[in-house]
Every structure is written in structure tokens, then in C-alpha cells.
């Protein structure tokens, strides 16, 4: 069982997320920004499933994020105008690619694993960039919009109503987060943490390491794909930059910034990062230097992340 204080914090967190559209405005934000925080947070938490809880660094998660986004966008544009189906196709595309790439790389460890994931991320970037006729190339995939969702008795207008879309994203976010939480608490999740702590010992205990790594990689990419489809739906647009290496780097820095050893850390990191990026890019053209500076400062001064520091203060 969780300690009572932590349960209160998590309850407050959900309450904040549930009421966000009603208070972001008063703080100078807007509903779409809150939605973007949720989408990025889901991606960063999905990455952290691998990074923080399996101890394996992937620097190419944007590939699956972007692929899923393209899958969703192209489904609506070329096949059927249905948001639900678009998400299904997008997630399937992202996850299938992760299954194939994952099988190629599970033999590698440490820096080499990271390097190969970086390199593989670029394949999809170049495909999206070069295959003009289908993907729209550098200009991105335009000319489609997310579609209202028809339930049995009613229709949810996620296209025209920003708040409705926010709650739709929050609903998906909640499902994914609960699923990840349950997975991490299951024997499977505990095994992943054991691998993170001591791979050799886990191996001697009879745990098939490569199978677990592969599965963890695929699960992580599955959730990142969900985030990718939401990202495309949010913007009604997707372009090759969504699957480039800098996007992968942003996911990693969000996880580290918030605290990669805590479940909720990436959410905090994503909130800080997205809001800062939104603010800085409206103020200056040199946002790249700014983001770079964030990377350097976080590594040098806050390697434990925001939640890591808070937790340390509380226990001291």
C-alpha cells in the first residue's frame, strides 16, 4: 500500500487534471496548451516505463510517436473519417514497427542501445520527409481533421469544442496511466525493476532478460504511439519533425527533468517543459539555445529531477 501522504498527492493531481480547463485561463494559459501537456506527459511517461523502470535508454521514441501520428492522420485522410479507427491504426503501426526494431536491438546494452535507437529513429524521419506523394514531405500531412466521436446515444464534438477534446485526451491518458501503473505493480513490472537494478543477478535467477527487454520496449512504444495519435489529432496536422531525433531528446529531458525514478515525474517534467517552450518561443527566436541550456543545466544541477529533489527534502 502507498503511504497516506502519497495518496493525497495523487488525488490532488487527478483533481488538478480534471479541472484544468477551468483554471489554466486564469494563469495565462489556454486549453490547447493543457492538452499538449497531457499528450507530451503521456509520451514521457511511456518512455519512462523503459528508461526509469527498466533502466534502458531509448533515444528514438519520437519515431514511434510520429509513425503513429502519421498512421492516424493518413487513416482519416485516405481511408475513413473516424477518430477511433484512426487511433487504432496509428497505434498498430507504431507498435508493430517497435516489435520489429525491438527484436533487432535487444542484444545491445547501455550506450550502444541508445545509439542504435537514435539511428533507427532517423529511418522513419527520412521516409516521412522523402515520400512526398503520400506524407506531404517537409510540409507535413495536411487536409484532414479529427472527427467527432459518435457514442451510442450521443455525439462528442471533440473537433469544435476544445474542452471536449481535452477531456477526451484526459480519458485516454487516464486509461494508459492506470494500465502502466498496474503493469509496473504486477510481477512482470517488478521483474523489470529487478533487471534495472542488477541485470546479471536477474539473469542468474533465470529471468529471460532479452524477452523482458523486448516486451518492455514494445509496451513503452505502444503508449508512446497512443500519445503520437493524440498529438496528430490535437494539431490536425503532423510533419516529419514529430519523429526526428530532437523530439526524442525532448521526451528524455522531460522524464529526467521531472524525475525519472518516480512514476509521476515525467508529467511534472512535461508540464514544465511544454509551458516553458510555449513561453520562450513566443518571446525569442533563439529558443533552441534555450532548450539546449535547459538540457545542460538539468544534467549538471538537477539530475534527480523535480520530484527527486522534493522527495529528498521530505525524507531529510
Amino acid at each position, binding site marked *: 500500500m502507498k503511504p497516506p501522504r502519497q495518496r493525497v498527492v495523487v488525488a490532488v493531481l487527478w483533481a488538478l487534471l480534471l479541472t484544468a480547463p477551468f483554471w489554466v485561463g486564469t494563469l495565462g494559459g489556454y486549453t490547447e496548451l493543457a492538452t499538449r501537456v497531457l499528450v507530451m506527459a503521456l509520451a514521457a511517461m511511456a518512455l519512462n516505463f523503459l*528508461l526509469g523502470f527498466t533502466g534502458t*535508454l531509448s*533515444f528514438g521514441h519520437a519515431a514511434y510517436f510520429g509513425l503513429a501520428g502519421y498512421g492516424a492522420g493518413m487513416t482519416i485522410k485516405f481511408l475513413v473519417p473516424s477518430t477511433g479507427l484512426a487511433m487504432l491504426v496509428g497505434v498498430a503501426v507504431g507498435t508493430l514497427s517497435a516489435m520489429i*526494431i525491438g527484436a*533487432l*536491438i535487444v*542484444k*545491445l*546494452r*547501455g*550506450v*550502444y542501445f*541508445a*545509439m*542504435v535507437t*537514435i*539511428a*533507427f529513429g*532517423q*529511418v522513419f524521419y*527520412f*521516409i516521412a520527409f*522523402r*515520400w512526398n506523394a503520400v506524407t506531404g514531405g517537409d510540409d507535413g500531412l495536411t487536409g484532414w481533421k479529427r472527427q467527432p466521436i459518435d457514442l451510442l446515444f450521443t455525439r462528442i464534438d471533440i473537433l469544435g469544442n476544445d474542452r471536449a477534446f481535452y477531456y477526451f485526451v484526459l480519458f485516454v491518458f487516464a486509461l494508459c496511466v492506470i494500465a502502466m501503473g498496474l503493469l509496473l505493480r504486477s510481477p512482470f513490472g517488478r521483474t523489470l525493476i529487478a533487471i534495472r537494478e542488477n541485470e546479471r543477478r536477474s539473469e542468474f535467477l533465470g529471468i529471460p532478460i532479452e524477452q523482458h527487454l523486448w516486451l518492455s520496449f514494445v509496451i513503452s512504444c505502444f503508449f508512446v504511439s497512443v500519445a503520437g495519435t493524440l498529438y496528430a489529432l490535437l494539431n490536425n496536422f503532423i510533419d516529419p519533425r514529430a519523429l526526428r*531525433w*530532437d523530439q526524442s*531528446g525532448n521526451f*528524455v*529531458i522531460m522524464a*529526467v527533468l521531472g524525475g525519472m525514478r518516480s512514476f509521476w515525474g515525467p508529467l511534472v517534467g512535461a508540464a514544465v517543459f511544454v509551458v516553458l517552450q510555449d513561453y520562450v518561443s513566443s518571446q525569442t527566436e*533563439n529558443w*533552441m*539555445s534555450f*532548450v*539546449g*541550456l*535547459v*538540457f*545542460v543545466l*538539468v*544534467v*549538471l544541477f538537477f*539530475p534527480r529531477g523535480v520530484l527527486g529533489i522534493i522527495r529528498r527534502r521530505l525524507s531529510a
Partner: protein
Amino acid sequence: MTQLLLFNVFNGLIVGAFYALMALGLSLILNLSGVINFAHGGFLAIGAYIAYTIMPHVGFWGALVIAPVLTALLGLLVERFLIRRLYGRDPLYSLLLTFGLAYIIEDGTRFIWGAQSVPYAIPAGMSNALSSQFFFLTGYRLFMVGLVAAAVAALFLILNRTRLGMRIRAGTLDLETVSVLGVNVRILRNLNFGLGIYLAGLAGVLAAGMLGLQPTIGTSLIMPSFVAIIVGGLGSLPGTLLGGLLIGVVSGIATVFVPSATEAVMYIMMGLVLLVRPRGLLGEEGRVQ
């Protein structure tokens, strides 16, 4: 057709030589210090822009000598004040740090020299074709191939014949023992980093004359360098060299038959190598970690 193919193979060889030069520097740093230097492309750009800036004063040849040295000095400082703090920590942190540096360098060069490509002069006469039939054989291209070959030969001589080089190779295998034997590992890692950055700077000075000079020149060359290391074999410098040349030539050939797959083909090759031989073409057993 034959001529087109020859042209693209030769072109691929030159581009591959740049990949190899970059990748050798990356490999040196990765093998000894376990750092993936994402800012390597940034250092390449810095080398090229320094050359561009001092060229009016010292000429092409002066710039060719001075610019890589200045870049290497900058590399020594970056290692001393930033990267050194991260040794012994999770490699994640040095990767993130150099990632941030790459951003800052690209934005910084754009701020100083502008986002447009700048005119980068190569010595007069060297851009003329040497033969009318093989129009692509310009003096500059041959010179680049020759110089890269000389640089690689010099690097292997340094690694095999000098005390510094032997210490670097020994440190790659077992840094702790090297340290116990009385070698100052801090200085060794510092010099090794500088050597890697020197190669990046040199590649920058040469590449700018062929590919044109704009702030993104570094980022466009770094990904293929990663691929070169993985294809060639993790931990093997000859493998890195081979990997760089190979992916250069293969993408050159791809340009002839499937122009839109020029970039994708090297990643496909990487996938195949990982499938058949995860440790890379010349990678040694047990060095996959």
C-alpha cells in the same frame, strides 16, 4: 550509365570519407570515455566556420592547419569543464549534455554567421575537372580523398606507435588498470577527447568546401556517423573506417537507382548487419556491452 554510376560511387566514397572521419572521432571518445558525443556535428560546424572566418587572413591552407587545432582546443575546454563531471555517472547524462550542446552550437552558429549558407572558397584551380570524360574528378575532390586518407593513416600511427596512442588503446580495454599503472587518466581522457574533436574540425574544414556551409551541416553528418560505428563494429576503429566508407558508397549507388532512398538505405543496411551480426562487421566478441 556507367559514368553516372562511377560518379556516384566516387561521390559516395568522398562523403563516406567524411562519415568515417567523423565516426572515428566519435568512436575514440565513445570507446575510452563511454560518452556518445552528440555535439560532434556541432564541433564539425565550428571547425568549418572558424576556417571560413580566418580564411581571408591566412588563406585556405592556413585555415586548414589552424581551424581544426582551434576546434580541438575548444573541445579540450568543453571536456575539462562540462563532460569530465559526468564520468562514472549513467551515460544518459553525458548524452543529454552533449545533446543540449548540439542545440546551443547550432543556434549559436546561426546567430553569429546567419541561417543562410555562406560562400566558402576553395583554392582557385582546384575546382576544375582533371579530365573531360570523368568530369567529376576535380582537384579538390582528389585532394579531399588524399587528405582524409593521410589523416586516417596518421591517426592509426599515433594509436599504434606513440605512448599516448598506446595508453588510449590500453585505456579502452581497461581504464582502471591503466590508472593503477600510473597514467593520469584525467589528462588521457582530455587529450583523447581533443583528438576526436580535431578530426571533427578537420572534417568540417574539408566538407564545407564540398557540401556548402550552413548551420545544419553538423547535424546532417552526425547520424550517418552513428550508423558507420554500428555497421563497422562497436569498439573497433578499423571497423568504423570501413563502416563509414561502406555506407557512403552504398548511398551513392542508391542515388542512381532509387534517389528518394539515398538516406534510408544506410539504415536498412544497419538493420541487416544487426540482424546477422549484432556486434558489427569488425566488432570483437564480448564488446557488445
